[in-house]
């Protein structure tokens, strides 16, 4: 077995570590954090801080007093979970709900299964879905974005997300064109206002209602490029995910543009970009082999579109990723990564 012989020194040391990867992810999230602070102001800072502190506290407390194992609080994974959880909630969420979310993310989704590396589902997403089902009113009242340096008195404090508005009006029997051109009259806090779905440039920059981290597609893509260059994430899942969403929504759009909106809208609204680059690429809860990752991304894309178009909720990214997380062990079984030194079968 020549293959196993280790050559003489010097060796190159691969200096990747959990810590490096995690802080790399945090670094990649900085643009999105800045955009969220720009549009939502101090509220965004408050949600981010509380979420991060609560996640780190629960991680520390559970490891110290319940598991009584080594403390891994410094590896940054709780920090990442905290930021991602904050990214997934509206900026006006009450403090106690954020703390419940942090407890669910760390306590139920991560520590119950044995800590980092053993959790079958993405912790931040479990926290978000738990909150969404438990507190549907608080989790779906989105504050209107109000740019930090151009603050103005708003006619209403809350407004819908583009996806939520589209879904509700389509269910009410209107056509896509009608909604996009004429907007929707709605009553907020007793006043009548006209809600207009923002144009694509505004959506790309993040000037729309939504969760903290999902609004700015541009900021998320900057972070994603950094992660791809640093090889923190691989290209397979994002490409398969985005590709399947574009193809699926494109087909629907070609069939009937009156009731199915174009693929571009699906790409720039909702949590798709956040999910694709920061949550569907989570190393722990996704398949290991490149082929498996392609299938994972494909499944995520199809489920996302099904939920967005026909489901009860306007947004399906978090559900799609969680459902595919459940399939990850099965996919791993079917598409094993090649063993080192394995000879291709003839």
């Amino acid at each position, binding site marked *: 077995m020549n293959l196993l012989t280790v050559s003489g020194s010097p060796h190159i040391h691969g200096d990747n570590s959990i810590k490096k990867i995690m802080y790399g992810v945090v670094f990649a999230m900085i643009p999105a954090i800045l955009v969220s602070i720009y549009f939502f102001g101090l509220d965004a800072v408050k949600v981010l801080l509380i979420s991060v502190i609560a996640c780190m506290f629960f991680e520390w407390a559970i490891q110290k007093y319940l598991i009584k194992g080594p403390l891994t609080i410094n590896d940054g994974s709780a920090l990442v979970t905290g930021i991602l959880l904050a990214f997934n909630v509206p900026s006006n969420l009450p403090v106690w709900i954020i703390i419940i979310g942090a407890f669910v993310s760390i306590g139920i989704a991560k520590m119950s299964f044995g800590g980092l590396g053993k959790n079958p589902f993405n912790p931040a997403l479990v926290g978000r879905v738990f909150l969404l089902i*438990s*507190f*549907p*009113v608080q989790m*779906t*009242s989105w504050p209107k974005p109000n740019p930090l340096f151009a603050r103005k008195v708003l006619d209403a404090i809350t407004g819908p997300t583009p996806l939520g508005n589209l879904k*509700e009006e389509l*269910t*009410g029997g209107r056509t896509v064109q009608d909604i996009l051109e004429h907007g929707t*009259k*709605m*009553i907020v806090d007793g006043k*009548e206002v006209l809600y207009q779905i923002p144009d694509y440039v505004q959506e790309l920059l993040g000037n729309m209602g939504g969760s903290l981290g999902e609004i700015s597609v541009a900021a998320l893509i900057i972070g994603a490029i950094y992660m791809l260059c640093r090889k923190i994430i691989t290209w397979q899942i994002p490409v398969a995910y985005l590709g399947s969403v574009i193809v699926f929504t494109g087909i629907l759009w070609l069939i009937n543009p009156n009731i199915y909106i174009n693929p571009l809208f699906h790409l720039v609204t909702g949590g798709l970009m956040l999910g694709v680059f920061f949550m569907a690429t989570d190393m722990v809860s996704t398949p290991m082999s490149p082929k498996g990752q392609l299938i994972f991304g494909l499944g995520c894309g199809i489920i996302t579109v099904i939920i967005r178009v026909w489901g*009860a909720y306007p947004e399906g990214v978090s559900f799609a990723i969680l459902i595919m997380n459940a399939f990850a062990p099965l996919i791993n079984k079917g598409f094993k990564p090649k063993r080192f030194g394995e000879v291709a079968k003839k």
Partner: protein
Amino acid sequence: MAKKESSFLNMVITLFVITGIASLALGGVYNLTKEPIRLAKLAKAEKAIKEVIPGFDRLEIFTVKPANGTDSLVFNCGYKNNELVGTAVESYSNKGYDPTQIKIMVGFTPDGNINNTVVIQQKETPGLGTKMTSPKFKNQFVGKNPKNFILKVKRDGGDVDAITGATISSRAFCGAIQRAYDAYEKENKKIKQ
């Protein structure tokens, strides 16, 4: 006592005896509970009516086909000492958030005011649409006359405060009441005779 052999005859006899005893026992229990079950079902049907129209001693029930919609509406006219005290109309809406039909019972006083409403069936989103059963939402209809109280949520130009986060369910609820009222107005003369 030794275990019985699994011969064909033994098996047939055993099963025959067991099923025979079982059916006798069930028949007996059925007879015993027949009357209470009938009463319980009756009480359940009347409970909703009692909640939406005030004390009555006699009911007259008939069905009406609404102008828009496929299913018939059930009219329960309550009389006290042969005088009309209210009409409970069982109405529905297919426009809820869940495909399950929303069924409500609306009580009208003889002058056409809404006396009360009861949700009989709904499967809306828990925590959002299900709030249509809460007093906070329901009570805004009490005592209103649809003639001058527009049965539409405020953002559609009506007078109804929608449930937070559940405009579609609120719309469906209003639609069901509107349907009941339209039919009631049409049948009003016939009832009052």
